[in-house]
């Protein structure tokens, strides 16, 4: 996969991988950017250029993950990005998959049993995923923001309380893997469910599941390899000041 760079046109980036369109949206970039380059658009929208490039490249290329570069990015920027990806799952991807499954179940083909079961299974997965996202929004992200502020202030007041309540260690332990169910669902739909005449809807469900899975893998990678280590370092620095 070609490396995406600052002086490429944004349109070129989309041509190289159309799955990046929703990722651009997460940065507040909407289609209709004409001939503008990445650099220009990032400047206009006050997007951190390095962060943008790291995210789009890592998204397009599984082997490319510029940890060193990403670690210099402000954690608030990272948390912001992670929040917008959550919103995308909750408000766009999950409802779309639900709609598709509903419409499959409605179609009067002979073998809808599998579809009904798959629908139920997806609901189970959705509950797990939403609980996972909610925990991050309610606990992890606010904690990260507090650690960031405390670290920046170079004061130690309140640090004991903050660090006693939660930690990146605790995050690591609770950050369980929710993609096993998603993988199973894909497998069941691919191997054991027959859609009857409505091939296209079933295909679309499967495409969407693959897309969601890939997005979540990318998301988790950012959390585990970038966010967690940066915040853990801040925690240590705060503890040193407190002593």
């Amino acid at each position, binding site marked *: 996969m070609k490396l995406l760079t600052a002086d490429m046109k944004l349109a070129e980036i989309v041509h190289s991988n159309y799955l990046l369109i929703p990722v651009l949206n997460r940065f507040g970039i909407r289609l209709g950017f004409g001939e503008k380059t990445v650099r220009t658009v990032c400047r206009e929208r006050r997007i951190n250029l390095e962060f943008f490039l790291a995210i789009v490249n890592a998204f397009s290329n599984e082997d490319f993950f510029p940890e060193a570069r990403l670690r210099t990015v402000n954690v608030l920027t990272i948390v912001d990005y992670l929040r917008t990806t959550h919103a995308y799952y909750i408000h766009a991807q999950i409802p779309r998959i639900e709609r598709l499954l509903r419409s499959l179940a409605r179609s009067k083909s002979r073998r809808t049993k599998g579809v009904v079961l798959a629908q139920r*299974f997806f609901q189970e997965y959705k509950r797990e995923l939403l609980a996972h996202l909610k925990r991050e929004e309610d606990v992890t992200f606010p904690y990260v923001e507090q650690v960031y502020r405390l670290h920046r202030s170079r004061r130690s007041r309140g640090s004991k309380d903050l660090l006693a309540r939660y930690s990146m260690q605790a995050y690591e332990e609770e950050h369980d893997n929710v993609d096993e169910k998603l993988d199973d669902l894909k497998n*069941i739909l691919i191997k054991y469910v027959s859609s009857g005449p409505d091939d296209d809807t079933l295909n679309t469900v499967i495409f969407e599941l693959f897309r969601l899975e890939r997005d979540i893998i990318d998301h988790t990678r950012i959390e585990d390899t970038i966010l967690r280590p940066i915040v853990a370092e801040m925690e240590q620095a705060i503890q040193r000041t407190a002593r």
Partner: protein
Amino acid sequence: MSASSRILLVTPNRLVGIGLKKLLLEYFSPLDVSIVADLGDVPELRSFDVAFLPSDSYAFYRDRFAAISTTPVILTEGAGVSESREVPLTVNVTGTESEIVEQVQRGLSAHRPGRGHGKAEHLSAREVGVLRLVARGYLNKQIADKLSISLHTVISHRKNITRKLGIKTVSGLTIYALLNGLVSSKDVG
């Protein structure tokens, strides 16, 4: 999940090694690929399934291949080298990408005649029995008691079921069991 084939690339030309490795991984994954400059550096040649190597290297080390099952594939420059009568497997490194891919494929398939591929892996009767109980909500320990087998055996059956079906979670396995009539929906509750 079957163990991937182990491939050895012998070439003093680092760029050829990198290129061939990329090509192998791109077209034939999963594979475990190692690169060395000289076959003399490889103590355990027998642990590899296929070795790609230059003809002079093969000529020099031919005896080492005689006693083992490792398949040698000769890297040649240009088609039709004198060696080709005895060793039919060659890859012409000056060929087009498609030619190279086809020759590499021939080399790889000479060693693994469809091992684990194409053959449907069906669940054994015992595995079906374990799967039924999993779908009905039994825990491993309870399954062991019910079938009078050890917990260890239950776990190994479950691993095999997951490997064969590609389904890891209990909910997923339950759906499989329902769809295939192994349990009825009132069993699962």
